């Protein structure tokens, strides 16, 4: 508790933007090695897929629909076993239950029978290693990270979609995952909420330093967030190409999007996507 990234004293000043002073990287290395997968033998979804993320790296996976994004996610999170090859976090074969893995779903998937605090506390209760009061403190600290301490006693249905998604993020972060897998977590939100949450996510990642794999179909979102964008082709093509995003950090919504480099990068990606779709 005392050394955790969610220790109470450190979480408190978080309401301010603190991108300039990230904590030591708490990220895991992620390896996908020669992964084959097919739902049926005749139509492989992936053939010898390879993907690597450095500790603390923010990787955006961008792809047109039909590229096997859902399948890829199920593989990356261990919900589906690959036919061959290995998927590892820091050398360990991935399983959905492994503590190093945090997961943000497309819809928040909060438990409707628990209030916000108990939703955030859920993972700590399952692990059962901490006494109740410490679980509460940690959950409150995680809620503070996403600016929702005041909503601790509310139930999910009393929150807006954006707030629910932030609670879901806090629920994942409270376990201090070293890899965060995000499956179009903001896709269902309105543009303004989405932009705010994108900025907030970068601020959190700057602080916590975990590795992030962020799946999206929005080119601008990918460029704004990522250190590297990985472009997926139509299945079974696998990875089409990669693009390093050399925009300066900390990134701010309005400033970053106005940079000429931002436009160049999004244009490059858009051209590549058109090429992928054209060959399909």
């Amino acid at each position, binding site marked *: 508790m005392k050394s955790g990234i969610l220790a109470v004293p450190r979480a408190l000043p978080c309401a301010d933007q603190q991108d300039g002073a990230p904590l030591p990287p708490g990220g895991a290395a992620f390896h996908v090695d020669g992964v084959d997968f097919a739902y049926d033998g005749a139509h492989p979804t992936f053939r010898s897929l390879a993907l690597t993320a450095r500790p603390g790296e923010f990787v955006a996976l961008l792809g047109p629909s039909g590229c096997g994004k859902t399948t890829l996610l199920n593989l990356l999170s261990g919900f589906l076993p690959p036919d061959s090859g290995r998927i590892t976090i820091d050398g360990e074969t991935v399983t*959905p*239950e492994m503590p190093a893995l945090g997961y943000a*779903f497309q819809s928040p*998937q*909060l438990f*409707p*029978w628990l209030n916000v605090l108990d939703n955030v506390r859920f993972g700590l209760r399952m692990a059962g290693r901490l006494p109740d009061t410490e679980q509460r403190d940690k959950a409150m600290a995680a809620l503070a990270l996403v600016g929702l301490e005041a909503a601790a006693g509310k139930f999910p*249905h009393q929150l807006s979609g954006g707030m629910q998604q932030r609670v879901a993020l806090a*629920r994942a972060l409270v*376990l201090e995952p070293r890899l965060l897998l995000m499956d179009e977590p903001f896709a269902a939100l309105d543009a303004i909420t989405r932009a705010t949450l994108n900025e907030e996510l970068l601020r959190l990642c700057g602080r916590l330093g975990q590795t992030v794999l962020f799946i999206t179909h929005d080119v601008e979102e990918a460029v704004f967030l990522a250190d590297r964008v990985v472009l997926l082709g139509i299945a079974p093509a696998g990875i089409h190409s990669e693009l390093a995003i050399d925009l300066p950090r900390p990134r701010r919504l309005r400033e970053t999007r106005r940079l000429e480099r931002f436009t160049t990068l999004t244009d490059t990606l858009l051209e590549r996507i058109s090429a992928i779709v054209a060959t399909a």
Partner: protein
Amino acid sequence: MRTRLYGWAAFPALLLVWSAAAWNLPPYVLPQPWAVAAEAVRWLNSGQLAAHVGASLLREAGGFAVAVVGALALGLAGALSPGFRAFSAPLTGLFMAIPPIAWAPLSMIFFGLGYVAITMVIVVAALFPMAVTVQEGFLAIRNGNLRAARVLGARRWQLIRHVYLPASLPFLTAALRIGFSQAWRALVAAEMLGASQGIGWMVAMGGQIGNATQVLLGVAIIGMTAWITESLVFRRIERRYRHWHLA
């Protein structure tokens, strides 16, 4: 607010129509509401009413309890095993299509007149609709919640305790409500056929001796018991879970 007033006006209106109709008919055909009320007081004072209502509730409780246990087992098995689901679906459909009271004569041949025969009819009446509701409920537990719980580290028994159990509360209470009312209908019908006490017997006996007051008293008690359990007990419990679907 205005719409609510109409709801409150419904029962007094029914009493008015009843009373007006009774005005034009001889009392041995249709007695006045207050005559039925006086009859109720008489039965109450003699202790007869408590004995009959008690007998009926005892049968209801026994049959309903057995049906709940059976429905949980069938519903869970159907939810977990697609094979069992496919196998049981036609049988459940068949048993739900047969009015439970049609089993009463067979039940009485098997078990003789008495508690067990009537209770078995109740079990048949309540079991299948409850089993279907339980099964559909378990199947509808959101896959997303289960995945979220697994990623948060929940193991198999923790999933049952912390996801399946709380997520099943809304449809379990719905199943209880459906089962209780089905059991109650079957109970009254079965008591009219083969019992020596109970509310159903009270109604049937009243008809045989031409005592319309006794019949109406029995009918009123049947309706009130069902209404009280349904809207005051089960619906109240269900209302607590209504917002769950919105999250």
